[in-house]
């Protein structure tokens, strides 16, 4: 068992190396223009565009802002980083290093997760400290934020499998998916006020469940039971990660 892929010692070694990749990715890619633009600036201005002049308390919009920030930030690191790595052929460094591809994918996902979590905390603190959002369930708030960041990071990892060395190509496809997902998720329009067909569409978006959980944790109305939102977010996370891993394995075999 000592040297096998299943040995705890080997798993620990690979886990640590995956974290090294995650830290490196955050240090290198979080300041890249596509990450700054689409991961931080765009969601902030999108929120402003929808909420400035809108009637009702700003605290109603805080869960949506946190969800959008997490959604865009966490899903941005891997799709921006991977094409750069292919272009500079730094991805080959992972392939020749003593770490298996599944742990490399894990490291890339952790980078998005950490970045998304950190970015989500900013609007959350602004909402709580500045605008007086009340936390009704700290546990749900923490779990929703972490699970949401993980889920969207896995989604980003899935898009990072697109075999191109041009970040623009991945971002185009990613935004083609992300923007409709954003608008159908009940972030800007409460789910309760949506027509039935729109609520049906919203139910296939992971962002819907993160937003609903955040609303619940900040003492606002929710549409789904907490356990159901958590379960569905978990299923989305597993599906995104599973498919991403499978696609990375396939591309690895073709090399």
């Amino acid at each position, binding site marked *: 068992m000592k040297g096998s892929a299943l040995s705890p010692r080997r798993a620990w070694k690979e886990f640590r190396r995956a974290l090294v990749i995650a830290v490196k990715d955050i240090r290198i890619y979080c300041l890249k223009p596509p990450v700054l633009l689409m991961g931080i600036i765009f969601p902030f201005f999108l929120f402003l565009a929808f909420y400035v002049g809108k009637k009702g308390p700003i605290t109603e919009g805080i869960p949506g802002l946190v969800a959008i920030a997490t959604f865009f930030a966490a899903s941005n690191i891997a799709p921006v980083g991977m094409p750069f790595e292919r272009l*500079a052929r730094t991805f080959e460094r992972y392939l*020749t290093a003593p770490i298996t591809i599944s742990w490399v994918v894990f490291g890339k996902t952790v980078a998005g997760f950490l970045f998304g979590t950190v970015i989500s905390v900013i609007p959350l603190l602004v909402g709580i400290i500045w605008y007086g959002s009340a936390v009704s369930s700290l546990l749900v708030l923490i779990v929703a934020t972490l699970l949401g960041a993980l889920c969207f990071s896995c989604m980003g990892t899935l898009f990072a499998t697109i075999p191109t060395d041009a970040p623009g190509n991945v971002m185009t496809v990613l935004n083609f998916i992300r923007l409709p997902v954003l608008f159908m998720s009940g972030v800007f329009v409460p789910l309760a006020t949506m027509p039935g067909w729109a609520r049906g569409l919203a139910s296939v978006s992971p962002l819907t469940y993160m937003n609903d959980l955040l609303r619940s944790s900040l003492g606002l109305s929710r549409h789904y039971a907490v356990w159901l939102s958590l379960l569905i977010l978990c299923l989305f996370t597993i599906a995104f990660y599973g498919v991403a891993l499978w696609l990375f394995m396939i591309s690895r075999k073709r*090399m």
Partner: protein
Amino acid sequence: MTVATEARAIAVEGLTKRYGQLTAVDDIYFEVPKGEIFGFLGPNGAGKTTTVKMLTGVSAPTAGKASVFGHDVVKDSFGAKELMGIVPDVSNAYVEYTAWSNLKFTGAMYGIPRKLTTARTVELLKRFDLYEKRKVKVKTYSMGMRRKLVIAMALINQAKILFMDEPTTGLDVQTVLDIRELIRELNRGGTTVFLTTHNLTEANALCDRVAIINHGKLIAVDTPENLKRAAENVQSVEVAFDRQPPEPVERLRSISAVAEVQKSGDKFRLLTGKPDTVVKAVARMAEEEGLNISFIDTPGPSLEDVFVQLTGISDATRTGGGQ
């Protein structure tokens, strides 16, 4: 050559790589004993890089198997990779990082303790004259500095086997000589070196044995001197005159024993199987034309000659040999 199992650094058996209909590497066999500098030569597209990619775990073989120090590169690629240092054909350091951060990152990827990585980082940066610029981002480095950094990164884990793909490409003469000396020094310390190169002078100067691959097939594996001996029919006469004779190439080609004439600077290289006959004929020609012979030599076949003969490439398409 058969090497005892425990003495093998690399063992390759029937290694094959196909991309659809294209067979890039076709059923090759060879062994590299521990402590050897092994040269891997071939023209562009011959299958060199594909072979290296399979040996280093980047690419999976279609058939056959290979092992590095007894670790199967597919079934136990983790174990094999822990023993390798790799200098790829491109300088793929992280340009957004400093040289310092690149080496620290590489050390961490090999699980080397932090203090040890720091000590080795300092040592390697000093050795490659990069220490003064250790805090400068690699994007500002020259091509030569990047190459040196990538070589330093390959040495951070003090690997038992070093795969080097064109390590001296793009470097100035002094650095090339330094790196060749470094390779010899590492080898004296017990490191096995697998050197892929176009530079036949480099292979001749460094390698204990060389393998020549062409169209995916291994066509020779032997010491440079044995290969040269096997190609003794490729002999030549090199001659230079004090002034150019009229239509010199045609005139020299008309000598019956000359198979081919190559002009190299002010010299003419006459390929022949009978150097003695050619020397006499050249002397007669010089006499008739009123020329003085300023230089004449009968060198044996070079590794480049062997390479050309075995791969069948024409002189015009020689792959930078003898650089």
